[in-house]
């Protein structure tokens, strides 16, 4: 598994209040469904996407860009699913 490539995707936080507690919970829950190692990278900080606490410490405000990195057998699917979450603004009611 270690030999698998890291795949990445850039996404933008479109939620009105940024990645606050609820969307962070959503993101961590989704990430935990995959076996791949998944991280979020923003401003030279890289954190575990399966940890809500880690995600919160990135303090991603509305409009922030962030890179999702995944490595593992289901990395590609994981990227797509997580990207969808960002695009759907974590299904928050506007």
């Amino acid at each position, binding site marked *: 598994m270690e030999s698998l490539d890291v795949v990445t995707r850039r996404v933008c936080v*479109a939620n*009105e*209040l*940024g990645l*606050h*507690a*609820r969307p*962070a*919970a*959503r993101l*961590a*829950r989704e990430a*935990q469904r995959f076996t791949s190692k998944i991280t979020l990278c923003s401003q030279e900080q890289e954190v*575990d996407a*399966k*940890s*809500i*606490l*880690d995600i*919160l*410490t990135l*303090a991603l*405000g*509305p*409009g922030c860009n962030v890179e999702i990195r995944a490595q593992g057998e289901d990395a590609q699917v994981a990227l797509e699913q997580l990207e969808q979450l960002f695009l759907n603004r974590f299904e928050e009611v506007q």
Partner: protein
Amino acid sequence: MAETILQGIPVSTGISVGRAFFLNRGHIHNMPRQTIPVEELDKEVSRLEQAFQRALEELERIQTRVPSELMEHARIIDSHIMMLQDPKLLESTKDYIRRMQLNAEWALEKSVEDIESVFRTLEDAYIRERIQDVRVVAGRVQQHLWGGTNSGIKSIHSRVILLAHDLSPADIVELEVGKIMAFATVTGGKTSHSGILARALQIPAIVGVAELEDFIQDGQLIIIDGLQGRIYVEPDEEELSEFTDLKYQFEDYQARIIRSSHLPAETIDGYQVKVFANIELLEEISSVLGNGGEGIGLYRTEYSYLNRINMPDEEQLLDEYRDLASMIHPGKMVIRTLDVGADKFISHFGPLDEANPALGLRAIRFCLHHQDLFRVQLRAILRASVHENISLMFPMISGLGELLRVKAFMGSVQAELKKQGLKYNPKMPVGIMIELPSAMLTADILAGEVDFFSIGTNDLIQYSLGIDRTNSHVSYLYQPLHPALVRMIKYVVDAGHRAGIEVSLCGEMAADPYCIPVLMGMQVDCLSMNPQAIPVTKHIIRQASMEDCKDLLKQVLASRTVSRNNKLVKDSIFRQHPHELMFYSSLLDEGY
């Protein structure tokens, strides 16, 4: 005298006398630190894992039975569940157990402290405060580590006064309302969730009582004075009977004023004044109607613009304004155009680099500067105005030149709509806020150009007295009854009436029990305030006589000092309402 008297911030009024019950959570100060022998480390780790597992099951159970009216508060439970499942929290706690041979309770506290130190460095205040959620979650685990739920909410068997470090949304969902007479917490401020809940449940509540956990023991008799924000620990006989009396009086008073809040605000000698509400959100309408509000005197339109990337479009705004107008119908509603700048920024534009934001590009100045933004809002308001209960109001007008410029701009927007065949009400009343001394002194000139005035006392006081009330060094100078203010308000009301237009007053002064009779004496046409203040205001007006109010105003106008004015109005209210005085809270200085 009571053993101890503690002071906090009252967030829900009322009095309650009962036994203290501590929701014992998340506080390790009475938990011994133990060194675990190496051979028992595995056992300690599995004890920790079990506690996490039980806490998780508990939260998942709670989540399935959230009553719908608490849904908003309860969504955060989902984040709490994720925190319990967070690899960081559990793994680093296990690590502390194994590495330092700590007992699970201490290990958990250590890892929470580590997380706390990371969060403390974050700039975003909202996210920084999520550390409170981590504490709440860890507290739930701690409770299972101690091996019992004997301090949990479910173990409450008789009616008690609930005391807690903090009340989380999950706690709130678990509360059996009938068993809680009142509550007090260490954390929290005027706007915390727990206060909103307490007001909805109509039980007294005090938050921000720093020493709560140090001075009160489980089972002690305490009095919660939600009027003054005080807690009396082990009160004596005298205090007990005093507060029991006060409690009955207050409940009786509350029931009376709410009952009569749907009657018109008419003085005993037949003078009527309109009592309207200031609101920011659609959801507040039910509170307006429930409290006897007759219309919306100030609809703040900023909410749709703040904290979002894309500005709302015309159709969204149109829907918003139309919905509101039909909900408040047949009552009137006044829409104030965007009032941003100073302390409220639109993230789209970011905070401006200004040395004095309060004197900077804000309110109408901001709109005239960003005309595209302004045009969209004006188009939406104009199109909504086919609902004939809508009026429009411009904030921060400084003089005639500026007003004419705004009106010309509105004229061009109207022409644009007409050309496109879109309907609007050409007779929609248009008014301005009087909140700058320059507008106040030219009120007679401005009156010829508008259909109504609304005096915004909060800003008028600050700009006239030259003080920032949030600055604690000078806030003592925030004096609504400064002779200058009394004269100004009188001048504006008279100028408006001479020109045949209505003058209303929105601002906290409108709902101040001590100021109301003076404002009545000036014959203000409408008072607009936060919905919760309406019943008391109407009650005071219905007990007053216009003759007395005019007489009081005469004395106030003849006085030379603030302290004399404060004394005059206090004496007057005391004569009218000797037994209800303690239920009134006022902006006026304590010392009078």
